[in-house]
């Protein structure tokens, strides 16, 4: 039976990030396990440890493996020891701007500062020129401290026009499976916007190597349960980027093409029941794509758009899946991430997936908050995207949001209504009647008719009621 429990105030620190409150809620409902979802405490080894201490099963990796993968430098070193190519960079925290300057000169600009304790694309800062390094160092440190409680930075070579490709792995005590890669190159400020599987850039040989590398890498960290190894694909080579020690937002596309329920497998592994699928049994069919629907206004530089949803209609049809947490009347609060829904399509091939996605976007109606659906509509029209020519800075490089002029069919209707009101003289000077008045007094109506008909001023134009 489903039950919901209030775990505190709306600020994350009072609720979803509050370990004591979450554990109390588990005890109050006599839960025996916690699935941490993604975000918040899902990659927090302290939380995983506290669960174990309280006799609760944490549905995720062991705390040690989580701590190891969460320390970006330790993860790099560990992967390198296993013979996995890592992106050129340093494997130590940089102590000063001077040290950063020396390292950057060695590996060559552009370079990328990354937070040692970072993740989720936060705390990364690209530096193109020596003149920028001092200010980038200071600001990246302060962002890292504010977000992860640790200001340490390391540095990697920044790869231009690289693809982001990742492999989902499930490991239990006996063995494991690695899934067909997901391509997540469409990003803005290091936040993924569109994911698809398989990658249009990966062939059979490369796929086998990526899967093998990811599974071997995670096993080497002493990993169990679901995890993802992210790679950068550049000039036909791949290098290790980072490990995500949790289920990921984009997991549905893997589920669609393989038919494996990843959350079910996570729970089975945590319960000691083991995987229901093996590498040799794993099959895949077709192509899946996901657009993240965020409450952000792409026409105003992705300004967050919290508020009340007054109209909501999801697209339907075969091969269309929506994972959402909203309905008409829902309030999108300003306290959390702007993701309100995931629009997922699954079809025979990539071309059909793009077409199905386009139609689904047209049919998706969300009113009351602005969303990035117009951005997705524009992206899916771009020849680069259609060709499968994807890279991590394509959204900025192609100025996709800057080209947007319209928010789509619904708002065009509003514009048509506005044009009709003005053209029909409904807003002419003097016609200051509020249209919302359902019952307008007869004398006022008479006066209004007279005015609209060009008659005398029965009521002073300034008068309002």
């Amino acid at each position, binding site marked *: 039976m489903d039950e919901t429990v209030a775990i505190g105030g709306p*600020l994350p620190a009072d609720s979803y990030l509050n370990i004591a409150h979450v554990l109390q809620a588990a005890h109050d409902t006599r839960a025996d396990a916690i699935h941490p979802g993604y975000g918040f405490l899902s990659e927090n080894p302290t939380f995983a440890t506290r669960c174990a201490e309280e006799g609760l099963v944490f549905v995720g990796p062991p705390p040690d493996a989580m701590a190891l993968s969460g320390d970006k430098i330790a993860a790099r070193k560990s992967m390198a020891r296993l013979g996995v190519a890592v992106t050129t960079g340093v494997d130590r925290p940089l102590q000063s701007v001077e040290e950063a300057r020396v390292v950057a000169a060695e590996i060559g600009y552009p370079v990328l500062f990354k937070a040692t304790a970072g993740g989720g694309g936060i705390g990364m800062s690209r530096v193109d020129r020596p003149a920028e390094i001092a200010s980038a160092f200071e600001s990246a440190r302060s962002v890292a401290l504010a977000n992860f409680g640790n200001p340490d930075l390391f540095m990697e070579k920044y790869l231009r026009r690289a693809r982001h490709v990742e492999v989902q792995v499930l490991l239990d005590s006996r063995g494991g499976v690695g899934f067909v890669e997901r391509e997540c190159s469409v990003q803005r400020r290091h936040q993924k916007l569109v994911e698809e599987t398989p990658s249009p850039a990966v062939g059979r040989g490369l796929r086998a190597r990526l899967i093998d590398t990811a599974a071997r890498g995670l096993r080497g960290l002493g990993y169990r349960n679901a995890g993802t190894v992210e790679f950068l694909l550049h000039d036909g080579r791949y290098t290790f980027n980072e490990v995500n020690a949790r289920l990921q937002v984009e997991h549905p596309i893997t589920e669609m093409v393989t038919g494996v329920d990843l959350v079910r497998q996570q729970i089975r592994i945590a319960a000691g029941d083991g995987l229901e699928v093996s590498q040799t049994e794993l099959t895949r069919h077709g192509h899946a794509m996901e657009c993240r629907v965020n*409450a*952000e*206004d792409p*026409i*105003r530089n992705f*300004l*967050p*758009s*919290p*508020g009340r949803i*007054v*109209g909501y209609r999801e697209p339907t049809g075969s091969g269309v899946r929506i994972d959402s947490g909203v309905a008409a009347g829902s309030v999108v609060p*300003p*306290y*959390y*991430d*702007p993701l309100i829904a995931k629009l997922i399509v699954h079809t025979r091939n990539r071309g059909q997936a793009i077409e199905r996605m386009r139609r689904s976007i047209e049919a998706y109606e969300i*009113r*009351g908050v*602005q969303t990035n659906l117009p951005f997705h509509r524009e992206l899916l029209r771009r020849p680069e995207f259609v060709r499968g020519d994807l890279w991590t800075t394509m959204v900025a490089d192609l100025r996709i949001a800057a080209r*947007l*002029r*319209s*928010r789509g069919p619904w*708002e*065009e*209707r*509003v*514009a*048509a*209504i*506005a*044009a*009709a*009101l*003005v*053209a*029909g*003289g*409904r*807003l002419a*000077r003097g016609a*200051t009647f*509020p*249209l*919302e*008045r*359902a019952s307008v007094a007869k004398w006022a109506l008479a006066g209004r008719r007279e005015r609209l008909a060009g008659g005398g001023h029965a009521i002073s134009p300034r008068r309002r009621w």
Partner: protein
Amino acid sequence: MRFRLDVDGERREIEVEPTAGGFVIRIDGATYRARARPDAEFVDVRIGAKHYRLRIQGNQAILGDEVHRLRIADISEEPGGEIEGRPTGRGAVVEIRSPMPGRVVRVAVAAGSQVRRGQTLVILEAMKMQNEIPAPGDGVVRQVAVAEGETITADRVVASIELGAPSAS
């Protein structure tokens, strides 16, 4: 002309500018070019390749088989400036309002600070993104109306600035 139009409960700020043969309609930064031809019963509106035949009846707009509830407020004849409804020019005091609800993570200026156009006044965190609220013009901060750590609603005054070129000193 500017007005606030609420269609089926969703409110938009609309700006309509007549042009030769039609209108430019701006809705929160999006732009639509429309041609409209009213007759006794209907208004025919063309936007791009799309054609809309509307009937406005009381507080309803009838479009195809859909009826939309309308509410109109704050009609004004003035074209919109860059800063909404502000008095402009040297010495004018403008209020800077929050574009969305959020938590004030940083107040970057204090009363009496000289600021330049575009300079960050306040950083507002909403949806895990830090959003800078910039000064709309050069001037002196008269008042800062929010404090760090405070959670504020949309459209709250965060600061007021007296416009005018900052002195060289």
